[in-house]
């Protein structure tokens, strides 16, 4: 046994884990995918976004409830429980309540039991643990570092992907560049770099992947050319306060700052889509895959992975999985990627076209089965359906731009489904800029504006601080 390995305690079992990986991935490597149960229907949920946004991986760790196990590194002696552990009748209760459709038209809802006070007490002691939202913390509270105040900045760029780097490099004067990833380059960077260093010939056979890598290299070179860029990684902007305030979080550490000009180039989020079984543990988006394979180094050798979708992330995921020793099966839902299809055939990756995803079901803790129907009909007649069983399934669709902070700062949004979701009104231009009511100059770039990588490279930011 490796001396550096750490031992954690999961619900009475001692598990040996590699150091430096996140708790959710450590449990995943031990075949434990169900990290929580959903509050109303008691559905098993697991690691999904791998960046602390969703509820799938919330667990009780060392007496503290609602801990994001995808963000927390394992340490020796860590005590981990599912939040609804021991309440085996919880899911049954939830199912019964949700079946009683007349009495409970929208099912069981754990927020009902907050008034009057005696019901609230009953809720805290009895119902709360049952519903899986966790018991209150036990033991001494963990010390929380005092929040930092960084003061006023002329230009802040949020998101250090290719677009954000380019904006930072072409802006006059000092720039503060913030990203939630530890290093600049964006969400795809670690995946592209791993493929380039371990199997560069694979990179060359997929034009979209190699051009993304080239674009990344150019951006990172651009970062070197400007001296007064300060990069802070591992920090996420979690709030915007009008007129010009930002709140950042890194673990328990909060930071506030103000800015005169804000360039919003935060990357997109994975979109899984609406289909039966879209909450199945073991169903990920490409950005989660990049993080899990490069940050945590999940051992995925030999695993059979279904990749469903199209576009850059579809091919990048396939290359990354191949580099990591997994067996990708491709279900291409769009027929436009000609050169890539030829390369996939050359690598003898199983490839299906003309299919649409119908549903995904878990068959055991570590296996799932995806059902496809011919794309032209997309009906429920199962005469010609195809079932594929696998260890993991990936949905590679256009990502969802992150818009919440610009909205909090006063920017109007409208729905643009073809660009991935809610975007600032007037989206479709290469860059969106304007002066907000509070006087803050806001510019929205890259994936945050619904543009795919490389599409905004010709424009230079022109907003001047008021």
């Amino acid at each position, binding site marked *: 046994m490796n001396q550096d390995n750490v031992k954690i305690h999961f619900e009475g079992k001692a598990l040996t884990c590699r150091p430096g990986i996140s708790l959710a991935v450590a449990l995943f490597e031990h075949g434990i995918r169900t990290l929580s149960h959903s509050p109303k229907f008691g559905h098993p949920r697991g690691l999904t976004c791998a960046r*602390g946004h969703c509820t799938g991986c919330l667990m009780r760790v060392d007496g503290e409830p609602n801990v994001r196990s995808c963000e927390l590194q394992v340490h020796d002696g860590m005590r981990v429980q599912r939040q609804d552990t021991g309440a085996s009748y919880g899911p049954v209760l939830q199912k019964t309540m949700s079946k009683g459709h007349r009495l409970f038209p929208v099912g069981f809802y754990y927020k009902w039991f907050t008034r009057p006070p005696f019901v609230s007490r009953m809720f805290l002691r009895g119902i709360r643990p049952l519903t899986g939202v966790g018991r209150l913390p036990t033991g001494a509270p963990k010390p929380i570092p005092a929040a930092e105040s960084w003061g006023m900045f002329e230009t802040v760029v949020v998101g250090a992907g290719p677009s954000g780097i380019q904006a930072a490099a072409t802006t006059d004067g000092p720039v503060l560049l913030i990203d939630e990833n530890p290093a600049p380059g964006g969400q795809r960077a670690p995946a592209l770099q791993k493929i380039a260093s371990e199997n560069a010939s694979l990179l060359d056979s997929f034009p979209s992947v190699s051009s993304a890598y080239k674009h990344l290299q150019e951006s990172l070179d651009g970062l070197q050319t400007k001296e007064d860029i300060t990069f802070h990684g591992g920090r996420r902007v979690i709030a915007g306060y009008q007129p010009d305030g930002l709140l950042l979080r890194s673990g328990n550490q909060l930071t506030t700052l103000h800015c005169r000009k804000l360039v919003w180039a935060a990357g997109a989020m994975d979109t899984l889509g609406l289909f039966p079984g879209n909450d199945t543990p073991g169903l990920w988006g490409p950005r989660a895959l990049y993080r899990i394979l490069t940050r945590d180094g999940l051992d995925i050798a030999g695993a059979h992975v279904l990749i469903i979708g199209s576009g850059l992330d579809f091919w990048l995921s396939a290359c990354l999985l191949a580099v990591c020793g997994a067996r990708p099966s491709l279900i291409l839902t769009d027929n436009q990627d000609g050169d890539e299809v030829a390369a996939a055939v050359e690598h003898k990756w199983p490839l299906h076209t003309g299919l649409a995803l119908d549903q995904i079901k878990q068959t055991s803790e570590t296996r799932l089965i995806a059902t496809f129907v011919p794309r032209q009909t997309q009906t429920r007649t199962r005469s010609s359906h195809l079932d594929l069983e696998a260890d993991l399934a990936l949905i590679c669709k256009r990502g969802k731009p992150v818009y919440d902070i610009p909205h909090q700062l006063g920017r109007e949004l409208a729905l643009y489904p073809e660009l991935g979701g809610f975007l600032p009104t007037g989206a479709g231009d290469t860059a969106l800029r304007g002066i907000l009511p509070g006087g803050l100059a806001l510019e929205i770039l890259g994936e945050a504006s619904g543009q795919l990588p490389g599409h905004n490279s010709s424009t230079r930011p022109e907003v001047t601080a008021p």
Partner: protein
Amino acid sequence: MSRPKTFLCRCEDVTLREFREAFREGFTELESLKRYTGVGTGFCQGKGCLSEAARELAALRGIPTSDQKPTTIRPPSEPLTFGQLASLEIPEPSGSPTPKEET
């Protein structure tokens, strides 16, 4: 063979079917649907589901998606503990008089 549920909002466990039923019950605005079904009120604060809900609603109402506005997205965008909130210095509201010293 029973079909698995399609979840519109994973945090608050709202299925697509529940959302459509709520629409048929007369909740035809995104704000009222959010309050009735809980869509977008959970841990992710709508990052995962708000645009899907809005798109579904636009289809149910038969209106162009570009007319669909989001619900108000208030800061912060993710849950914070009381301990974290207490770690923040509260700035003086601008233009307010300086507080009188306690005697």
